[in-house]
């Protein structure tokens, strides 16, 4: 029996005609060795295709590269400009915001009360609310 082995790789690559594929199917239905052969070929094919694509060495494309490099520089400039703008806004806001001369209990309560109340062990009742009667006595 002749084995249509050359069709196997073409089948794996999707390069068989319909008639050839039918012929291959018919043969493999009765030939265990060809089924095993197909499995081995598929493993080899998969292994080759799993080879990683290696990166180009820097500068290899020569004159073709300068049109790409300025884009990176422009992107870096935009990021730097945006960061400088944010820093300027923060600085101006800090200068213009009035600072309290001293912290009061109410200041602390209003600023940290909600956060403290999340933890029962440090609730605002223990920390922020003094017992007025004890103080008066």
């Amino acid at each position: 029996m002749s084995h249509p082995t050359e069709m196997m790789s073409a089948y794996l690559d999707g390069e068989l005609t319909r008639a050839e594929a039918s012929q291959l199917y018919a043969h493999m239905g009765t030939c265990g060795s060809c089924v095993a052969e197909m499995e081995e070929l598929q493993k080899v094919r998969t292994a080759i295709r799993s080879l990683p694509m290696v990166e180009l060495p820097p500068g290899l494309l020569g004159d073709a590269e300068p049109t790409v490099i300025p884009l990176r520089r422009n992107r870096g400039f935009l990021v730097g400009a945006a960061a400088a703008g944010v820093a300027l806004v923060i600085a101006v806001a800090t200068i213009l915001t009035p600072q309290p001369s001293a912290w009061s209990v109410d200041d602390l309560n209003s600023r940290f009360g909600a956060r403290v109340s999340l933890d029962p062990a440090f609730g605002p009742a223990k920390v922020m609310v003094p017992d007025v009667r004890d103080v008066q006595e």
Partner: protein
Amino acid sequence: MTESVPLTWEEVARVYGRKIYNFSYRLTGNRDDAADLVQEVLLRVRRGLASYQPGSFEGWLWRITRNAFLDDVRKRNRRPVAPIPDDVERWDVGASPGSDVEYSRISLGDDIQKALLELPIEFREAVVLCDVIGLSYEEIAVAVAVPIGTVRSRIHRGRKILKELLT
């Protein structure tokens, strides 16, 4: 294939440079040789684009690439071109080793690369163009200037030899 053709060699370099480098690297197994080949190919593309006739651009580009590779092999005479055996059975590796064969070694890229370099060049370029670059048999036939049936045969025989080398 009738895809749009890049207008300049710079565009060819940007779009195909990495693929050309990988093709060259898998054929030569050497990064420096591959880099030299990329530059030679781009030079030939630069010269040839003006006279390019619309058709299979991939086939045209890869024909330039494999010709540059073959010219380099002949010039350096590093690795004589192995003739394709007339007798297919010479490369037959016997019965299939069975489904229980361990292919763990195949997962190692170095082993695959070494095995590729063991192939006759005609088989190697067909396998690399198909499995690494992803060309169709028709595109490979244009690139290598052989009938599609020959492409089919070379790819299959190349894989069979690789199977033997990797098991």
